[in-house]
């Protein structure tokens, strides 16, 4: 790994949450690339079974198996790294554990057919979560010849509304078996999640509802933080530059732009009917300015949380690997990775 200073030195499990529609999966993907660049090996884990990672990286649907999906770009001085991905689901994870602990090699399929796995995870909702987080914790702790297999693990976690329950493993399964694999497993998972090795990042947009959910989520996790849970950064997705100096931004928002000046400029650029056009463009500028000012107010609310904020630029084209590299570079430039 690089010797640069980053804000999350020592963190090896990055949990990424956010409200639906904020681009949580995209940011998790970009973070994985950012962490891998400079020679790292990073595992990106999907928790919701939507194959969002496969779509994002434009590769075939991911199995319950770690496979390499991208290469982080090499820099002038450092080699590139590797991003692996895995789509975790509770059913497969449970069967994996049962096989491991009870040697029930063929029981898995029978259990699935009978609907037992579905049943067990249904009557004990915490079980599903502990199996999923368990996979991430296991990958984080996995070692080969004394060295960690992955330099970092990035978890594309459930949305903000569910993150507290999801991470509060110990409490959620406390009613379950007091012995046996699940209980031991929950304790291991808990010890990883509540350690300086883990940080929980929030993805948001500069809009009221996502920002509110971020603040609510932070408040909820702060309640759990006494137990050692580490709050991470706030990743602000799809940021557009204001493009105008403050005085003009304010004037534009109030519809008080110097239209004459605009008109002259359009004329100078050789556009016909510049006056009619100036009216339309002034209206667009007004929309843009109001949006920019509203975003600034939301940004202020995020700053007040005291958590580090990182800005990811709006990618105008459809998100692809090129766009992900851009976002990854932005995260690295700002010290998030």
């Amino acid at each position, binding site marked *: 790994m690089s010797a640069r200073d980053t804000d999350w030195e020592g963190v090896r499990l990055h949990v990424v949450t956010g*409200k*639906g*529609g*904020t681009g949580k999966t995209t940011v998790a993907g970009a973070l994985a690339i950012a962490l891998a660049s400079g020679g790292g090996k990073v595992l990106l884990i999907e928790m*919701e079974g*939507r194959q*969002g990672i496969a779509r994002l990286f434009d590769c075939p649907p991911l199995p319950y198996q770690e496979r390499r999906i991208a290469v982080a770009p090499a820099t002038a001085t450092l080699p590139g790294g590797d991003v692996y991905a895995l789509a975790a689901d509770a059913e497969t994870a*449970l069967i994996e554990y*049962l096989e491991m602990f*009870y040697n*029930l090699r063929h*029981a898995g399929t*029978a*259990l699935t057919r009978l*609907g*037992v796995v579905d*049943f*067990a995870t249904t*009557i*004990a*909702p915490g*079980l599903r979560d502990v199996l999923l987080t368990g996979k991430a914790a296991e990958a984080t702790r996995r070692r080969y010849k004394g060295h960690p297999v992955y330099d970092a693990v990035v978890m594309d976690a459930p*949305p903000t*509304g569910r993150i507290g*329950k999801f991470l509060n493993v110990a409490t959620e399964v406390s*009613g*379950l*078996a*007091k012995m*046996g*694999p*699940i209980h031991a497993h929950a304790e291991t998972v808990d010890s990883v999640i509540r350690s300086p090795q883990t940080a929980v990042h929030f993805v948001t947009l500069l809009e*009221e*509802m*996502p920002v*509110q959910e971020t603040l*609510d989520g932070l408040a909820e996790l702060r309640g759990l933080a006494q137990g050692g849970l580490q709050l991470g950064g706030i990743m602000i997705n799809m940021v557009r530059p204001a*493009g*105008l100096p403050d005085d003009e931004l304010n004037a534009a928002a109030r519809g008080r732009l110097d239209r004459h*000046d*605009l008109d*002259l*400029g*359009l004329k*100078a*650029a*050789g*556009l016909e009917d510049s006056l009619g*056009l100036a009216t*339309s*463009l002034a*209206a*667009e*500028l007004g*929309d*843009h300015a*109001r949006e920019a000012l*509203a975003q600034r107010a939301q940004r202020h609310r995020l700053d007040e949380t005291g958590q580090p904020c990182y800005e990811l630029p709006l990618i*105008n084209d*459809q998100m692809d690997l090129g766009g992900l590299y851009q976002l990854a570079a932005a995260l690295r430039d700002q010290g998030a990775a």
Partner: protein
Amino acid sequence: MRLEVDRLLDDPRTRIIVCCGSGGVGKTTTAAALGLRAAERGRHVVVLTVDPARRLAQSMGLTSLDNTPRPVPGAVRDPRPGGSLHAMMLDMKRTFDEIVEAHSDPDRAAQILANPFYQSLSSSFAGTQEYMAMEKLGQLRKSDEWDLIVVDTPPSRSALDFLDAPQRLGRFLDGRLIRLLSAPTRVGGRAYLKVVTAGFGMVTGIITKVIGTQVLRDVQTFVAAFDTMFGGFRQRADDTYRLLQAPGTAFLVIATPEPDALREASYFVERLSQDRMPLAGLIVNRVHRSPAARLSAARSLAAAETLESAPAALIRPNEGSAASPGRYPLAATALRLHAERMQLGERERRLEEHFTGAHPVIPVVEVPAQPEDVHDLDGLRAIGAELARAADPAPAAAD
């Protein structure tokens, strides 16, 4: 084809409007805007929202919503058409408790409500929210107090959950496994167990190991107390399901012009037609259109570059030859922003065309992106007006 929202809202035969779509597409705002518009056009409307984030409360300027419909203050300014607007937020646990109380004697109800397994089932089972939303919808419809119910579906990760989850809960509660597991506590259970194979013994063994004996005991006492209600659960889910298929129900699929949201909308549209659910149309929120669409992105960018790299040839009319590069920064910025907006609009249009190409007969309406968040009734009115705006005179891409 354009979706005629006012015709839908004004038609007295429209009794239920269901707004569905993936998370973050503006379902709640759309449902509230439709409800407000219908009320102001003379309907007696109740808006049912299922969102724990209380977004509807915010956008309707309310501070609290509970499990009973409350009048929305300030709605329906013009009393002439005689409409009214109520809103309520679903309390899923309360709704579940009410079903239990209504269907068992007080002692048994108390026993069920105190059961730890019931408590986790009624507050955190994936699907309970959808089931209870359907249940509440059925209750509201039955009460006949409102002539239009607008439902905002739960913020599931998939729009399909709204249709699937209630059945899932019904199936689960009715299921073979839950009965087998709890068999020993029930009369006649032992006889039943005899015919069960030894393999099943292994299965219960594993379940006990995994979830623990305490949980299993809770499940067993729950099943014993809940016994008479089991069949009813699937029945209720089926009833509401049929209500959704009935004439008088209209589904509106909500999306934004983004790949994920439109893909989800596509799945949902296909599923509705499979299940013979009445689809009224697609609402595309947050669409970027320009009032200056005749100036293309390419020309706009070129013009911005001309201004930014302007040599002496570009002079302000009254300034002689003193022109310097970047003479008109405001115009250049405006042109760049315009170009971006046109490109974005073009991309959105392509995505939408992809959808309409696959589903050509579905009426569509677009709602422009709002520069600021909607959080008051005026904002909802503006959205309502956009929804009902007469056919778009604009762009060539309309055909």
